[in-house]
C-alpha cells in the first residue's frame, strides 16, 4: 500500500490538524483554504484601501500636491485591480470554500489539491503586480480596465508583468470555480435536491459558471495586449486593420459578467441572513433561483453599455440599453423578496442583519444609479464622470463588501467557536455605514456636475464636495481597523463560547455541526429529509 493510503487511514480516525507552516502551505482542507482566502482578501482589502487613501489625500484639495500624476494613475489602476481580483473575488471564494461543503453536507471540496493550488498562486500573482510598482517607469497606469491604446502604445514596459500576473489571477479563479461547480454538482448529501440547496450555494453555482465562461476571455484580452505591445500585432490598431474599440468589446464581454461574479454571491449571503433574523423562511425561494439565473444569462448580452460613447451604430446602442434595463426586473424580484421575507417577521437586529439591511438599501441606490447610466442619451453626460465612480462603489462597497462583512459576522462564531466582540462590531458597523455614505454619496453630485474620473486635479467648484468625500474616505478606512482588531481577537479565541446553532433562527446543515466546526465534517454524508 502506498504512503498516501496510510495517510488516509490515519486521517480517518483522528481529527488531527497538521501543525506549523506546512499545515497552511500543503493543506487540502477546505476550511484551512477558506481561512487562507479570507485572510488574503482582507490583507488585500487593506492594501487596496491604503491606495484609495492616497487617491483621496491627493483629491482633498484642488491642485497637485502630494503625488505626481503618473503615480496617481498607478494608484487608481492598482487600487481597482486589487479590490476586484485580490479582495472581493478571493473573499467570496473563501466563503464558498468554508461554507459550500458544510451547507450541502460534503466531506470537503471535490478536488482538494487543486483547491490548494488555486489559492497559493494568488499571493504570487499580487506579489508580481505590486512589485511592478517599484520598477523603473512604474507599474500599470492605464486604469484597471487597461483600455488600448493606453495599455499598448502608451504604456510602460512593466505591462508584460501586469499581463502575466492577470493570467495567474485568471487561472486561480478558473480552478476555484471548477472546484465549486463540481462540488455542488457531485458532492451534495443524499436528499439535498437542487431546489433544497441554500441560496448561497445556488448563487455560487451560477457565479462559478460565469467565472469559467469569462475568465478565459480576459486571458485572451491580456494576451492580445501583450502581443500588440511587444510583438507587433495590431488587434487594437487601425493601421493594421484592427480597432481599439475591439479591445473594449472583448474586455467588457468579460467585464460585465465579472460584475455579477462580484454580486451574485452577495445576493446569496443576504438570502441566508435575512430569513434567520426575520425568523421566517425566505420569501419566493424558487423565484430567487430563477432571478439569479436570469441575471447571469442577461449579463452576457449587455456588455456594450460600458461603451455608449465610444462609437457604435445606433441600433447597437438601443439594443444594449434595453437589454440592460431588463436586468432590473430579476434584481427587483430579489429586493422585493428580501423585503417580503422581513414583512411581519420577528425581526432582531444582530450585526449580520444590520449589514444586510444596509446592503439592501444601499445596493438598491447603486442599482438605481445603474439604471440612470443604462439610458444611452443621458449616459453621454455621465460617462467617465464621478457619477460612474459613485455607482460602482455603491454596488461594490456597500453591496459586495458589506455582504462579505455580513457573512463574516454571520459565520465567524461557527468558524472560531466564540462569539466576537459585539461592542467592536457595532462600532465597526455604524462607523462604516456613516462614513461610506459621506464618502460615496457626494460623488453623485460632483459627477453630475461634470467632474471626470481618474484625474488628480479638478476645477475649483468641486473643492467642497471633494473635501467631504476625502474625510468620509479616511473615516471609512480607519473604521476597517476596528474590523481588523475584532478579527484578531476572534482568531485568538477570545470571547464567549458560541452554541452550535449560534443564531436562534438559523436553519441549515452548517448549524447542525459543533462550533467551532471540526477539522473534518460530514465524512459520511448526512441524509437530508
Amino acid at each position: 500500500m502506498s504512503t498516501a493510503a496510510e495517510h488516509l487511514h490515519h486521517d480517518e480516525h483522528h481529527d488531527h490538524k497538521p501543525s506549523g507552516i506546512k499545515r497552511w502551505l500543503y493543506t487540502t482542507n477546505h476550511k484551512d483554504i477558506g481561512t487562507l482566502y479570507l485572510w488574503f482578501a482582507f490583507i488585500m482589502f487593506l492594501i487596496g484601501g491604503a491606495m484609495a487613501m492616497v487617491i483621496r489625500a491627493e483629491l482633498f484639495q484642488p491642485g497637485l500636491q502630494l503625488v505626481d500624476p503618473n503615480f496617481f494613475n498607478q494608484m487608481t489602476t492598482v487600487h481597482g485591480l486589487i479590490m476586484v481580483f485580490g479582495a472581493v473575488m478571493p473573499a467570496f471564494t473563501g466563503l464558498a470554500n468554508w461554507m459550500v461543503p458544510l451547507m450541502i453536507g460534503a466531506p470537503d471540496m471535490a478536488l482538494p489539491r487543486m483547491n490548494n493550488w488555486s489559492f497559493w498562486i494568488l499571493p504570487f500573482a499580487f506579489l508580481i503586480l505590486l512589485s511592478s510598482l517599484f520598477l523603473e517607469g512604474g507599474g500599470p497606469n492605464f486604469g484597471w480596465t487597461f483600455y488600448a491604446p493606453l495599455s499598448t502604445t502608451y504604456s510602460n514596459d512593466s505591462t508584460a508583468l501586469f499581463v502575466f500576473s492577470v493570467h495567474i489571477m485568471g487561472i486561480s479563479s478558473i480552478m476555484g470555480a471548477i472546484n465549486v461547480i463540481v462540488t455542488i454538482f457531485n458532492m451534495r448529501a443524499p436528499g439535498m435536491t437542487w431546489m433544497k440547496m441554500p441560496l448561497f450555494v445556488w448563487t455560487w453555482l451560477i457565479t462559478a459558471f460565469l467565472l469559467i465562461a469569462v475568465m478565459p476571455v480576459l486571458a485572451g484580452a491580456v494576451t492580445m495586449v501583450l502581443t500588440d505591445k511587444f510583438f507587433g500585432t495590431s488587434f487594437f490598431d487601425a493601421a493594421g486593420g484592427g480597432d481599439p474599440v475591439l479591445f473594449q468589446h472583448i474586455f467588457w464581454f468579460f467585464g460585465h459578467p465579472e460584475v455579477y461574479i462580484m454580486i451574485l454571491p452577495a445576493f446569496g449571503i443576504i438570502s441566508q441572513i435575512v430569513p434567520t433574523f426575520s425568523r421566517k423562511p425566505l420569501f419566493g425561494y424558487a423565484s430567487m433561483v430563477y432571478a439569479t439565473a436570469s441575471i447571469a444569462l442577461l449579463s452576457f448580452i449587455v456588455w456594450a453599455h460600458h461603451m455608449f460613447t465610444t462609437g457604435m451604430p445606433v441600433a447597437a446602442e438601443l439594443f444594449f440599453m434595453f437589454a440592460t434595463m431588463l436586468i432590473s426586473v430579476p434584481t427587483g424580484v430579489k429586493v422585493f423578496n428580501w423585503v417580503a421575507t422581513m414583512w411581519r417577521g420577528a425581526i432582531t437586529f444582530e450585526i449580520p442583519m444590520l449589514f444586510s439591511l444596509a446592503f439592501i438599501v444601499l445596493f438598491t441606490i447603486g442599482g438605481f444609479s445603474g439604471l440612470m447610466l443604462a439610458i444611452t442619451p443621458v449616459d453621454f453626460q455621465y460617462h467617465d464622470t464621478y457619477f460612474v465612480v459613485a455607482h460602482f462603489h455603491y454596488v461594490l462597497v456597500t453591496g459586495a463588501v458589506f455582504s462579505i462583512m455580513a457573512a463574516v459576522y454571520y459565520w465567524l462564531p461557527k468558524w472560531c467557536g466564540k462569539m466576537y466582540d459585539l461592542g467592536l462590531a457595532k462600532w465597526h458597523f455604524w462607523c462604516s455605514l456613516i462614513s461610506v455614505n459621506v464618502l460615496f454619496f457626494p460623488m453623485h453630485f460632483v459627477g453630475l456636475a461634470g467632474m471626470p474620473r481618474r484625474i488628480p486635479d479638478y476645477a475649483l467648484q468641486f473643492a467642497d464636495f471633494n473635501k467631504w468625500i476625502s474625510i468620509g474616505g479616511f473615516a471609512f478606512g480607519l473604521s476597517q481597523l476596528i474590523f481588523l482588531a475584532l478579527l484578531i481577537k476572534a482568531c485568538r479565541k477570545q470571547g464567549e463560547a458560541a452554541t452550535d446553532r449560534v443564531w436562534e433562527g438559523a436553519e441549515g446543515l452548517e448549524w447542525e455541526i459543533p462550533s467551532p466546526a471540526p477539522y473534518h465534517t460530514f465524512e459520511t454524508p448526512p441524509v437530508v429529509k
Partner: protein
Amino acid sequence: MSEQHYEKYYVPAQSPWPFVGAVALFLIAVGAGNFVIETTKGKEGYGGWILLAGMAVLLFMLVGWFRDQIEESMSGMHSNQLGRSYRQGMSWFIFSEIMFFAAFFGALFYARMIAVPWLGGASNNAMTNEVLWPGFEAMWPLVQTPGGTTTEAMGWFGLPLANTIVLLISSVTAHFAHVALEEGKRKQLTLFLGITILLGLGFLVLQVEEYVYAYREMGLMLTSGVYGNTFFMLTGFHGLHVTLGTILLIIMFFRVLKGHFSKDNQFAFQAANWYWHFVDVVWVLLFIFVYIL
C-alpha cells in the same frame, strides 16, 4: 446508492505539489514577463533563465503530482463519485478552453465583419476612410493594411487540407483506441493510441512547415496586420494545445504499456481523449473560418 454502500470520498492528505506548482507559476510569470521585455526592448536580464527554471519546477511538480495520483488510482482509492468529480472537472476545464479560443474567434469576426469594412468607409464611416485612410479598400483576407503593409493570403488547399485530414483521422483512431480499451483489447489499444500520437506529431511537423513557408515564401507574418495576427494567434494557440494533447497521449501510451487502465478505471485516458477531440473540433472551426472562408 444505499447508505451502507457509500464509498468514502477520498480526501487526500497534505500534499506539497500544489505549493510547488504555485512557485513554478510564479517563476514562469516573472520569467516570461521579464523575458518579453528583455527580448523585445533589447535589455539585459535573467528573464529567460527564470522562465526555464519555472518550467523545470513545473515539470518536477507534474511528475510528482501525477505519480501520487496514479499510485492512489492504482491502489483502488478512487470511488465512482471521485471519478465523476474528475470527469466533470475536466469537462469544465475544456469549456474554459473553448471560451479562450472564443475570444480570438471573436476578434477575427469583429476585425473581418466590422473593423476592416468601417476603415474602408462602410456604414457611416465614409470620412474615416476619406480623411484617415485615403485609398484603403476593405477586403478579406486583408492583404494590404490601412498602414500599407502587404502580405499574401494562406489558401486552404494543399498543406492545410492535408493537416485537416491528419487531425480528423487522429480523432477517429483516438476513438478506436477508447473502444479497444472498453472491450479489453490491449493490443489494439496500444496500436491505435500509437497511431494517434504519430498523427499528432505529424500534424505539428506540417504546421511548422506551413509557418516556415508563410514567413519565407509568402511574407505572411505575425506582424502582417490583423489577418496575420488572427491567423498566427489562432493557429499558434491551437498548435500549443495539440502539443499539450500529444504530451498527454504519450503519457497515456506509457501507462497503457505498463498495463494501466481498464473498463472501470480509465479517467486519465478518457480525459486525454476528450482533450484530443476538443483540439480536433477547434481545428475544424479554424479550417473553416481562417482558411476557407
